[in-house]
């Protein structure tokens, strides 16, 4: 580190920081720009200047429409699908990790479903939901998202369970626990950070999903991505309103990523067992 104090080191430091500033700008500018468009009057969306004026008009327009309903729909669908998928992902992941159930073939078969392009699945999904009377229905979307995310969540959980030493279960078994008790009382609490991380990832995936939501939902059940897309009208894109919607849509993701960071770090400190 001491070399960095020299003149040559200082030049390198300046170059490094310039590079970092550019990289940050590339990531942050679009977000900052969207935020700016959201908080200035709609008429000034394309006008020059950083903040020519402040106005809540875009948010007012958003809230007068169907957006609040879509926001609630997204929360219900993303949250519901995770809660529906998690018990399956946890038990499947555990079976794969601990008992190698079905052999490597089964594990990859589960993952293979993830490799199909979503377009190939959306029509069958529509046909099934229509037969079941679940189109334009939040329950239908929850069911589909849970199904779509299950393989991914299963693999994440499998990884976390593999990181838990089998001796923990052996200890519980010889301490008098049944296999189910060992799983429920010892393994599950240890895997909690992993479950939180997987849950948040699943939530984000469902939150951002557009294609299935577009095909399977109606005006009453539209999620945020569909609602925002709906703002592209014959009069052009209502860019100010879209920007306001994007700002609100990103908020839960920022909160979620804070969580996931903490839990993933916790998940990696299983070393505490040794």
């Amino acid at each position, binding site marked *: 580190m001491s070399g960095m104090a020299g003149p040559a080191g200082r030049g390198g430091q300046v170059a490094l920081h310039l590079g970092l500033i550019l990289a940050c700008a590339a990531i942050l500018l679009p977000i900052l720009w969207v935020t700016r468009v959201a908080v200035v009057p709609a008429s000034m969306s394309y006008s020059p200047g950083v903040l020519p004026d402040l106005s809540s008009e875009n948010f007012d327009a958003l809230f007068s429409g169907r957006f609040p309903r879509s926001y609630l729909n997204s929360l219900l669908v993303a949250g519901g699908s995770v809660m529906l998928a998690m018990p399956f992902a946890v038990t499947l992941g555990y079976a794969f990790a601990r008992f190698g159930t079905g052999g490597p073939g089964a594990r990859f078969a589960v993952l293979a479903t993830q490799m199909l392009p979503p377009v190939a699945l959306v029509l069958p999904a529509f046909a099934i939901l229509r037969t079941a009377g679940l189109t334009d229905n939040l329950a239908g979307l929850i069911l589909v998202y849970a199904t779509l995310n299950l393989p991914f969540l299963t693999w994440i959980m499998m990884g976390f369970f593999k990181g838990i030493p089998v*001796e923990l279960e*052996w200890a519980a*078994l010889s*301490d008098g*626990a049944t296999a189910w008790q060992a799983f429920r009382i*010892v393994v599950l609490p*240890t895997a909690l950070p992993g479950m939180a991380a997987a849950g948040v990832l699943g939530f984000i995936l469902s939150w951002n999903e557009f294609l299935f939501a577009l095909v399977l939902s109606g005006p009453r059940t539209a999620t945020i991505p569909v609602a925002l897309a709906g703002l592209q009208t014959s009069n052009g894109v209502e860019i100010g309103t879209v920007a306001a919607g994007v700002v609100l849509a990103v908020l839960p993701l920022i909160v979620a990523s804070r969580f996931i960071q903490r839990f993933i770090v916790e998940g990696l400190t299983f070393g*505490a067992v040794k």
Partner: protein
Amino acid sequence: MARITLDKVSRLYGSGSVGVHEVSLDVADGEFLILLGPSGCGKSTTLRMIAGLEETTSGRIHIGGRDVTDLRPRDRNLAVVFQSYALYPTMTVRANIGFGLKMRGMPTAEIAQRVDQAAHLLGLFPYLDRKPAALSGGQRQRVALGRAIVREPEAFLLDEPLSNLDAQLRAEMRAELVRLHRSLGRTILHVTHDQVEAMTMGDRICILRGGRVEQVGAPLEVYANPSNMFVARFLASPPMNFLPARLVAVDGLSLDLAPGLLWPVPATHLAAWAGHAGSAVMLGLRPEDVHSQGAPGRIPLDLQVTAVEALGPETIVTGFLSAAPGLPPLRVRLGRGRLPLLGQTLDLHADLLPAHLFDRVTEAVIPRPRLDATP
């Protein structure tokens, strides 16, 4: 009563590989038995089969006269301590120690009382409300022991419980385990690959290799009378020296080590070894049986020094016999007063009385009269 009996117990894996092959073992009630062997010898697998954590492919396991082969771990009433300690990371020390009692449905008040007792015994009282992550290695080890003790099981199964500790702590815990064994009087099976643990802790040692029992006996008995070259090599550090030789009928009976290098066999061993005259043998000579001082019956030899390890209390010297440089190098144990230089030739004396002869093909020992240690 917790006598543990293994009757031709085997563990085969799906791939066809053998983990443990027809191991028969009888551990007396209250005995401290060491399962010793290199990694992969099946000692931990044997322990897990006794605990019910590993399936027994064939053979029967009895604990206290009861056939437990097909019982679940929880129905065997054994306590297991693992090398990694396997403390429940989400529970406090108190909950960890009390877990087994809770699983057996003991009333909360009684659990608390027993946990406190065990914590006092092991010096864990100040840490009862901590999580395992906030404990040192030695403290975690004690929690694992506490978790085992508090259940008052029929027997303790310890799977290399000391190998994650530093040298000083390990020495302390060795003594503590022996003390615990005396005060609890329960059967203990202790798996280790450490010869010091094996020699100092157990009533008997069972040495395993490749899933088979090589020898069972009291530590000093096995040390003094190894049944084959593997046991002789494994049960000491530095290990026994092996010099290939031929038993010839010269001067009664001699060991022909190299052209012109004949070592006479001690008179006491003549009768036992005479039948093997003419056969190719391996002379097993422990490093402590080569001395600086000459004495009647000792065989003088010149050792050309190639390596010196000064350990403090003693110096381990490696070198070649000047008279037969083609033989494998010899390691000898000298007092701390000697610190030879590399390349120097030492004037030493081998005592063949405690030495062993092994069949060079089967590696089995060729018996000789027993030498008993005197108090």
